[in-house]
């Protein structure tokens, strides 16, 4: 499972970086989204991977190894919310740039 998650994060971030370096603003925003997906999975992985573990501890004496770490899950939730808001904001800036310049090149003008 570790290998699958690691490869998934690698592929997401790798494609994200490639798209980020492309000249069209649509490619940039898709690249940024892919990077943020990869980062979210990575944060999740930092809480250690496991199957059948709940993050909420019940009453009485418990064995912590049978539970998942709830903190990275809370962090991922925050990161998703913030990332979503920032992507929406970037989309607005992108559209404004398209409207002003009539091109979707990230520099606001087509290369000669």
């Amino acid at each position, binding site marked *: 499972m570790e290998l699958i998650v690691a490869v998934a994060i690698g592929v997401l971030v790798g494609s994200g970086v490639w798209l*980020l370096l492309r000249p069209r*603003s649509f490619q*940039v925003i898709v690249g*940024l989204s892919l*990077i*943020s997906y990869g*980062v979210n999975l*990575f*944060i999740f*992985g*930092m*809480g250690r991977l496991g199957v059948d573990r709940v993050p909420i501890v019940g009453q009485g004496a418990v064995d912590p190894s049978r539970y998942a770490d709830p*903190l*990275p899950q809370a*962090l991922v939730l*925050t*990161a998703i919310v*913030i*990332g979503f*808001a*920032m*992507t929406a*904001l*970037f989309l607005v*800036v*992108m559209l*404004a*740039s398209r409207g*002003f*310049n009539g091109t979707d090149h*990230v*520099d*606001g003008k087509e290369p000669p």
Partner: protein
Amino acid sequence: MMRWTDHLILVPVVLPLVAGAAMLLVDEQRRGLKFAISLVSTLGLLAAAIVLMRLADGRLEGWSGSIGVYLAANWPVPFGIALAVDRLSALLLALCAVLALASLVFSHARWNRAGVHFHALFQFLLMGVNGTFLTADLFNLFVFFEVMLAASYGLALHGSGAARVAAGMHYVAVNLVASSLFLLGVSMLYGVTGTLNMADLARVIAHVSPHDRMLLEAGAALLGIAFLVKSAMWPLAFWLPATYAAASAPVAAVFAIMTKVGIYVILRLWLLLFAGAEAGASSGFGRDLLLYGGMATLAFATIGMLASHDLRRLAAYSIIMSSGALLAAIGFGETAVVAGALFYLLSSTLSAGALFLLIELIERTRTAASSVLAVTLEAFEAQGALHAGAGEEAPEDSGVVIPAAMAFLGLSFVTSALLVAGLPPLSGFIGKFALLAAMLQPAGGQAGGGVQPAAWIMLALLLASGLAGAVALMRIGIRTFWVPTRPRVPRLRVIEAMPVAALLLLCLVITVQAGPVMRYLDSAAGALARRDDYVRAVMGAPTVPSARDRAR
């Protein structure tokens, strides 16, 4: 029972949040009301910051030590989010409030009409900046960073226009990538140490197993890159000149504090986690990067200042210059050097803010023809053509107009040029002098023997950058004030001239009062070096006993 002094720690975050949220409900046309709310909130921030400074300095009775800790929702450390104030945080809160006050008053003249929700975004920016100065928790730092950045995206685009949108898009993209790196770094640190509280992190960092140490350092490095992007270290600084040059004047002035936020976080975290010998095998991690990266930034900014013909870009490069000097000073890591750097930080932030506001006023003296000619002036030696076209009269609003506008502009420009270039007798020089004096007299010099070679390089770079700054500013000053034989005398209103004058006067005050200011900064830097005190104060912060506990 909690005293009022404990709750005061939360005021710099809650006050702008409430003010900003309240202003979203107010109709966009009622600018007077919005301005009043904004002004009251910012004045409140300034008052709170000054009281916090006095509390941290021990002038007012309140806290047991020089560090005040606030436990959000009464969760014990390290499970909840703690806010901590020491002398450095309180000082930066005050600096931020002063700068915000100046640009807020300035913006009331015309800029707050250039777009929607200016005041609300402004307050949210202040909330984010204040939060980063206060927080003692890494993930909370991320949240406040994002609040600050989200507001700054809106403010950078304030006034709209193709240039702002193009610069703003690059700015947003760069910062989104930096935020991703921030998250990666935070989660790696959490994965290795199991804590996000900065004080707890400093405690456990020495006990990390050698097996995990590489992961820890990789996490710290990723985190560091995110902050270095914000504090504009070369080669991560290319977004800054375009964004700051395109932003409207009051926004650019308040953005002058934003690079300092990156610097503050690096100063705090690096000194806490890696500077001392307590960090075990990781001690001194990243020192060379800060030291030589800072110097490279200084060199880059020097070249940039000489190369820019536009006053706005010049001011943006002066911000990079101060970042470079500060980062290199942090890399030295000695208490006296850090104290000097803090003085330089104060002076450079205030003068950069004043310069950005002043540029807007100076640009009004230019006629349409001369602003085109300014670029080609040297190539064609076309001074004679300068007063050919008078340009159209810009629509002016009513308001109290100050007399002797040109004299005011010239005097302010010379003052801020001296401050930015760091020439005597003003505070920029004192800051640089304190920095250099501390570097050339290392505290451990008797044992280590002599001055570090890096200190000599730094000396040369600081002096060269000062010279370059003076040359570049004087060149533009001559072109603006002397070359045009009949310059257009602009109408300046009091509320536009006053903030500039106030910021420059404050620089004069810290020049005259350099003794007391330096004493405060010395103790602030000393407190940063005593990391055990910080760890003890935050880790040992008592929770408030509940009513049930007290009854028992």
